[in-house]
């Protein structure tokens, strides 16, 4: 299947500057730099590019807001924190296609009028950091960033910042805190970074995959881009499959591809010739889908209508011989551990939920404890600075609804029903 980011299948090995230029690399920048920055925003808006970090916010709108916000200088931040367990799309892009990512970053900075860009990359990604540093050196000597980019009036400085590898460190305002030299703690929003961002100035924070889409769109146009995907989710998205399938890896698919295609054709199906019990399309924070939803299309609206979410495309499978309670223990523990601890409500919720699910696991609390999950989630709804507080809810509530037998088995016997 033809892709946008990986036109000939997932890139293997690092693409250097000459290889990238041989396939049209930096032509989008050369073309755009002769026109006002708004033209880039216009192209991205017409293409309908949506953020790939999980929220799916329209990228053109984000850049328009940043460009129009009062205050100088403006900043562009590439968010390559990639702390979602099982996600590896950003790493693959940074390692193998650093110039595609870099050209998108430079175009984004140009479009919003930023004079400085920060490349925030997971500190564990040694290969990716080296790859991007090498690309920065190559691109600088070619005049693609630095003073007077391609002899224009536009100058751009770029700096790599290693990102701490805890979950909230990838939240966009936590990213800003780290770049400012502080702890990775999310800020209260509003104000949003587009108006009050890095050092209090207008800042666009974009995911690596989002920025990787920019140069192809600018070069080939919105009509070409919209040939991929659906009306509301144009283009492609990179999905990450892990050890629960026969062929783990990253797969670029047009939005609107059936989930079944990703799991069966790309991933080679669930490991061990088992039956799938549940699918988590955006692990670890989306609702579980039952097997009969395997033909749901991979786009934002279809996933929402099916009762789940697309997130950043880490698809997790639960096999028929696994217990959903055991899965929830891991998920609830993850959020309790990863809560940064600055918002009391988040500490209360994530820790209480983890405690509750462990009671269930141990066969304690009876039916009344199951009734408490919804109440604790409702009590904390809308609280906290960032979205982490809302993340344990969908897995827990969907599991209670879809797999009551697993909870009953634990509560009646104190033992896990899984073999």
């Amino acid at each position, binding site marked *: 299947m033809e892709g946008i980011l990986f036109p000939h299948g997932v890139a293997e090995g690092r693409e250097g500057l000459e290889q990238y230029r041989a396939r049209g690399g930096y032509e989008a920048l050369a073309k755009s730099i002769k026109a006002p920055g708004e033209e880039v925003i216009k192209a991205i808006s017409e293409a309908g590019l949506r953020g790939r970090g999980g929220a799916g916010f329209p990228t053109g709108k984000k850049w328009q807001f940043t460009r129009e916000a009062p205050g100088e200088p403006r900043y562009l931040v590439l968010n390559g924190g990639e702390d979602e367990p099982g996600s590896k799309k950003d790493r693959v892009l940074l390692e193998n296609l650093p110039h595609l990512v870099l050209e998108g970053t430079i175009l984004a900075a140009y479009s919003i009028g930023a004079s400085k860009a920060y490349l925030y990359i997971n500190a564990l990604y040694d290969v990716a950091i080296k790859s991007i540093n090498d690309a920065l050196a190559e691109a600088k000597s070619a005049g693609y960033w630095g003073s007077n980019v391609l002899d224009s009036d536009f100058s751009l400085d770029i700096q790599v910042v290693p990102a701490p590898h805890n979950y909230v460190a990838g939240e966009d305002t936590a990213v800003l805190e780290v770049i400012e030299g502080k702890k990775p703690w999310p800020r209260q929003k509003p104000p949003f970074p587009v108006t009050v961002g890095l050092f209090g100035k207008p800042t666009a924070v974009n995911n690596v995959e989002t920025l990787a889409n920019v140069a192809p769109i600018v070069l080939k146009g919105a009509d070409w881009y919209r040939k991929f995907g659906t009306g509301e989710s144009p283009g492609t998205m990179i999905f990450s499959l892990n050890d629960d399938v026969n062929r783990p890896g990253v797969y670029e698919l047009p939005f609107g591809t059936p989930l079944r295609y990703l799991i069966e054709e790309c991933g080679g199906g669930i490991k061990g010739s088992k039956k799938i019990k549940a699918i988590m399309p955006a692990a670890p924070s989306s609702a579980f889908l039952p097997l009969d939803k395997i033909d749901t299309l991979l786009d934002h609206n279809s996933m929402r209508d099916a009762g789940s979410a697309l997130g950043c495309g880490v698809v997790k499978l639960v096999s028929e011989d696994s217990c959903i309670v055991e899965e929830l223990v891991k998920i609830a523990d993850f959020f309790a551990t990863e809560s940064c601890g600055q918002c009391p409500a988040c*500490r209360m919720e994530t820790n209480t939920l983890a405690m509750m699910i462990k009671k269930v696991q141990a066969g304690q609390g009876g039916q009344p*404890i199951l009734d408490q999950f919804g109440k604790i989630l409702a009590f904390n709804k809308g609280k906290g600075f960032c979205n982490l507080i809302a993340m344990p809810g969908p897995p827990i509530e969907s599991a209670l609804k879809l797999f009551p037998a697993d909870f009953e088995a634990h509560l009646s016997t104190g033992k896990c029903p899984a073999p």
Partner: protein
Amino acid sequence: MSRVCLVCQNIDCKSRGSEQLTAELEKRIAAKGLTDVEVKPYMCFGACQEGPNIVLYPEKSWYAKVKVEDLDDITDHLAGGPHVQRLDTIDSSLKELIYQLLDTGVM
């Protein structure tokens, strides 16, 4: 089942001295010879603005904005004395939520 005094240890309650309250309460309870009462830290009761919060269970008495000087009255209550009405200020729906949770054994 023995009785417990659950003392909230989340950020707000801690910043208002809940650790010191825990230690002081233990001393007073020991001094009164209340061997069936255990003082236990608790993650959070969700009433951060009203902290420090102490919940007596299974009596289900919730005392808010507790200061060290309130501890003798609370200890008296544990020893069979009167409910400390002035510290009983928490909304009944929140009380119900937390009491139900405690009833399921989450503590």
